[in-house]
């Protein structure tokens, strides 16, 4: 398979500077895929986001179905892919459609308070989405920048 998934992240801010600069270079990605159905047909937004990266790196905005189709097709060219989902709902839809990954990264909450319950930070709908994703054997962890440790613990807490 010539597509290697280097990072899967949920970030509502999509391709902002932290991701483009820190993660993209750190994980050695040369293709950024943003999964956000609301911008799928907006080529202008895609072009503007592409401007934040050099021409040697490609960027696409996909729907969930387009993501699955892209991953299943083999272009023959080695592509190191970083996938940014707009929200947990998009990850859940992708997993339901057959998307396979080992783990999903979520940036720390801004305050980095100690999370005792997932519901302190996530809505009940998001908690359900997290549990669904976990039920498919996919791990979730908090990590904002490359030098941060991966924190899986908060996602292993059982809701009270």
């Amino acid at each position, binding site marked *: 398979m010539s597509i*290697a998934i280097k990072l899967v992240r949920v970030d509502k801010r999509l*391709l*902002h*500077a932290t991701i*483009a*600069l820190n993660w993209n*270079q*750190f*994980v*050695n990605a040369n293709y950024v895929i943003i999964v956000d159905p609301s911008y799928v047909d907006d080529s*202008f*937004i895609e*072009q*503007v*986001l592409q*401007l*934040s*990266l*050099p021409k*040697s790196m490609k960027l696409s905005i996909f729907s969930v179905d387009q993501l699955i189709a892209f991953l299943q097709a083999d272009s023959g060219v*080695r592509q*190191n892919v970083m996938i940014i989902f707009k929200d947990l709902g998009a990850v859940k839809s992708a997993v339901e459609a057959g998307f396979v990954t080992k783990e999903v990264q979520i940036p720390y909450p801004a305050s980095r308070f100690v999370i005792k319950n997932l519901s302190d930070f996530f809505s009940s709908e998001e908690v359900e989405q997290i549990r669904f994703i976990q039920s498919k054997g996919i791990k979730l962890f908090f990590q904002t920048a*490359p*030098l941060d440790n991966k924190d899986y613990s908060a996602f292993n807490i059982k809701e009270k």
Partner: protein
Amino acid sequence: MILYDIFEEFIYVVQENDRYTIGLLDDDGQIISCSNKKLIGKKLSLVSENKNDTIHRISIRNVDYGYLWVNGNDDDLKMISSLFLESLTTRLMYEINTTSLKQKVTKDDKLVRLLIDDHEFDKNQVLKLIHELNIDENLPRIAILILHPEGFDVDEIVRLKLRTDSSELIYSSIDKQSILMFKDIPVNVENHEIKSYLTKYIDDLKLWGLVDCDFLVGTPQNRLRYYETSYKNCLWLKRNVARPKQDVTFFVENFFGYFLSQIDMKEIRRTFKCYQERSKEVDVSEMIHIADCLIKSNFNISQAADELFLHKNTLIYKLKKYEEVFDIDIRGSFQGKVLLSLIAYAFLEYQQQLQVGEKV
């Protein structure tokens, strides 16, 4: 200047879209670059009162690069102008980082060349670069020669510097198909753990993107002057050891072969030539093969016999013959075992020299 080149790409996208006008303003509000060329030179107020205009300061790490002006007549103007600003600053930061990274890699290149210069070790120059790169000269490091038959992606190699475990790494492309690294070994890694530490590190490199490569690992060195030895270990592996493709080969696993290769084999061959010629019963090629199997099986006769598809007694018979011919005690003494290994290696080298037509 890099900002203007990047901004030209933004202008191209805006001109294709035709919904907005974008411009770069200097500190006085004068338009110095614009998607509408006719507006260049015009002056704008930096505090815009027009609802169709947005003006943002372009600032990166406390350095100002002027202002971004976006003009448009739709509801998305605020969102689009923020997106333009973010994309522009992100791209600028990216290019600034890449430039600084390339400067660092250039210093690494110089340092690696000084470290492997076999004519003269220029200590002052090496230390100067070490200090400029802000790395610890006292950490032990080990050479890893990475080979890829089709060559490496230059940008990818530069990005190696961004890995969190690269802060003490020294590396350079030796040529299109080879990268030489001097990888630091953390102080808490014991000598017997070095191999597993590096195996994990190399596995991480493969996952990161260095796929389809051969990895040759030298010996750990804690003096800058001896880094060259570690590199030469890798070169010796490259030239002399048959290795599985796309795998890791450690010099430490080839100490015996290496030191055998450093002995003056001509002298050994001459010493034993007469013994060998006086007895026509010794098949030299077979003896070389038997000695090789004995070495690999730690002189375990049963194991070596299995490897050679011989009955154990047949192998013992042949060893007795070598003992008689060379007047050495192979089975009973450690020295005899070493001597058989040396004799076999000396004759092997002789055969190889004859094969390539060398004068011997």
